[in-house]
């Protein structure tokens, strides 16, 4: 391997990439457990399909748009690496192979659109969702990743490299971005049938906990891996991630206990995710006590934020806005207060004698990404809705989207299962489709 290469760093980043990959299934279970039993599979596949679509687009042009040499004042990368052209097996990015860097960054591009899906649970046509994912990563994620994550000594992305907005691991590019897109889409698609009337209880809270456990685990790759090296900064980001997450769980549970009189498992899971989100941008610039404060604040505020949807009347079904947009903004802004100047960056926040300068930059970063994501996502959503249609019919929604869009049901626990349905004798050998249903069950 060429000079400057580090096997230790490479091992760390490759394993981190695998951890981040696992977050997408983790997210699928986190979301999938929260929906009703009739739309579990749809929720799961909305995340899994991002692993397919975004991976292919990344190879074709996504990597190049995000991390190709800057083509236009920090707005977008050039097309030099289309089809991964010009990337040799042993070429380096810092101390690691470009392939490893590219794999790590790909996993971020995969999970970001998957995060959006929670806002429109139970009611999106699957083909329309696939199209949205493809368009959205192209027009929104790849450019924004360039703005925030592409560093080239001041010739890189305009937010991060040129204007000093700190986002260590994706508070803006990933979480605010996905959260605002979720808001836009749930406005485009409208409320679920029965919103505010039916309870729509999670069909499996253990599945939610599994999802949150896998997310927490994978997030160490997301945050510590963003150091792109196995060093002290990675260690600090790791500790900060753990601390903020634990604290946010406590913050959310405390809020709930005070407001509703009970600690819920969904609160524990959601609090953890809120903490993970909030520390994401900040884990490379704050102290461990700073991480503790950020976690507590994010847990309590996100717990409060999720009831906004009832008050304002938008059906952000699984609280993508309340957790990801709000949590991402909290974390990004609190850097302006808690950055010590001694961790990964030299910029200091208000509480460490740095004045309001960094806070201003952070606010700009938050605002730019939020507005850009919301506007483009809303336009994309409308365009799809007006053309091929984005929302399923009410009949389908009531009967269950799994049955109609995926021709499956999630579970069959009946010990008498074999008998409760009947196979057509003509089924597979000929492949001739059976007469389609005359009416949707309801």
């Amino acid at each position: 391997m060429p000079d400057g290469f580090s096997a230790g760093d490479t091992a760390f980043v490759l394993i981190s990439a695998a951890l981040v990959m696992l977050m997408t299934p983790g997210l699928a279970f986190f979301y999938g457990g929260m929906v009703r039993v009739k739309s579990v599979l749809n929720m799961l596949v909305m995340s899994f399909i991002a692993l397919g679509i975004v991976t292919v687009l990344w190879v074709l042009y996504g990597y190049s748009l995000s991390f190709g040499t800057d083509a236009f004042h920090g707005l977008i990368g050039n097309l030099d690496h289309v089809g991964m052209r010009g990337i040799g097996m042993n070429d380096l990015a810092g101390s690691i192979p470009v392939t490893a860097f590219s794999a790590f960054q790909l996993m971020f591009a995969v999970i970001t659109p998957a995060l959006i899906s929670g806002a429109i649970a139970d009611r999106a046509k699957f083909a329309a969702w696939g199209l949205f994912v493809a368009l959205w990563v192209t027009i929104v994620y790849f450019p924004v990743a360039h703005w925030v994550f592409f560093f080239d000594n001041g010739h890189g992305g305009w937010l991060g490299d040129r204007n000093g907005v700190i986002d260590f691991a994706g508070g803006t590019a990933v979480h605010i971005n996905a959260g605002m897109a979720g808001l836009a889409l749930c406005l485009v698609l409208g409320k679920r049938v029965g919103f505010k009337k039916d309870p729509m209880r999670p069909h499996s809270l253990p599945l939610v906990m599994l999802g949150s456990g896998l997310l927490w685990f994978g997030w160490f790759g997301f945050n510590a891996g963003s150091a792109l090296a196995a060093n002290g900064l990675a260690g600090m980001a790791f500790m900060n991630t753990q601390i903020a997450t634990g604290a946010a769980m406590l913050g959310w549970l405390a809020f709930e206990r005070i407001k509703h009189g009970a600690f819920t498992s969904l609160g524990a899971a959601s609090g953890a995710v809120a903490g993970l989100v909030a520390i994401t941008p900040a884990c490379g610039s704050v102290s461990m006590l700073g991480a503790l404060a950020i976690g507590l604040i994010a847990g309590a505020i996100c717990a409060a934020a999720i009831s906004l949807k009832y008050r304002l009347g938008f059906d952000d079904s699984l609280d993508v806005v309340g957790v990801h947009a709000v949590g991402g903004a909290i974390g990004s802004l609190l850097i302006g207060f808690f950055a010590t100047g001694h961790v990964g960056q030299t910029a200091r926040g208000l509480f460490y004698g740095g004045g309001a300068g960094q806070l201003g930059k952070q606010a700009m970063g938050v605002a730019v990404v939020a507005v850009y994501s919301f506007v483009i996502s809303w336009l994309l959503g409308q365009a799809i809705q007006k053309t091929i249609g984005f929302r399923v019919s009410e009949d389908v929604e009531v009967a269950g989207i799994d049955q109609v869009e995926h021709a499956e049901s999630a579970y069959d626990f009946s010990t008498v299962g074999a008998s409760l349905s009947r196979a057509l004798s003509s089924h597979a050998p000929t492949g001739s489709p059976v007469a389609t249903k005359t009416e949707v069950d309801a």
Partner: protein
Amino acid sequence: MKLITAVIKPYRLDAVKEALQAFGVDGLTVTEASGYGRQRGHTEVYRGAEYTVDLVPKIRIEVLVEDADADQLLDVLVKAAWTGKIGDGKVWSVPVETVIRVRTGERGPDAL
């Protein structure tokens, strides 16, 4: 007394419960059931093969009532369960000889 049994579409349960309550009947027993009738089920695909699932989820409700209330209650029930689409279900009534409230041992109409 009568035992009125209704097999209805699951999402009508709330409406039925409310209608019965308005009518003054406060107790009922519910079981999950599957129905087979003119309403068709749906098709599922598993590993390159298609299957018809011909049983449709239904809710089965049992209400014990006094003879005098039975007819009216039938009407209330049917009205609340109605959607007008195929598969709305059936309601039937059967005469009951004895009803006992376990807690108090009361028998007959007092047990309802």
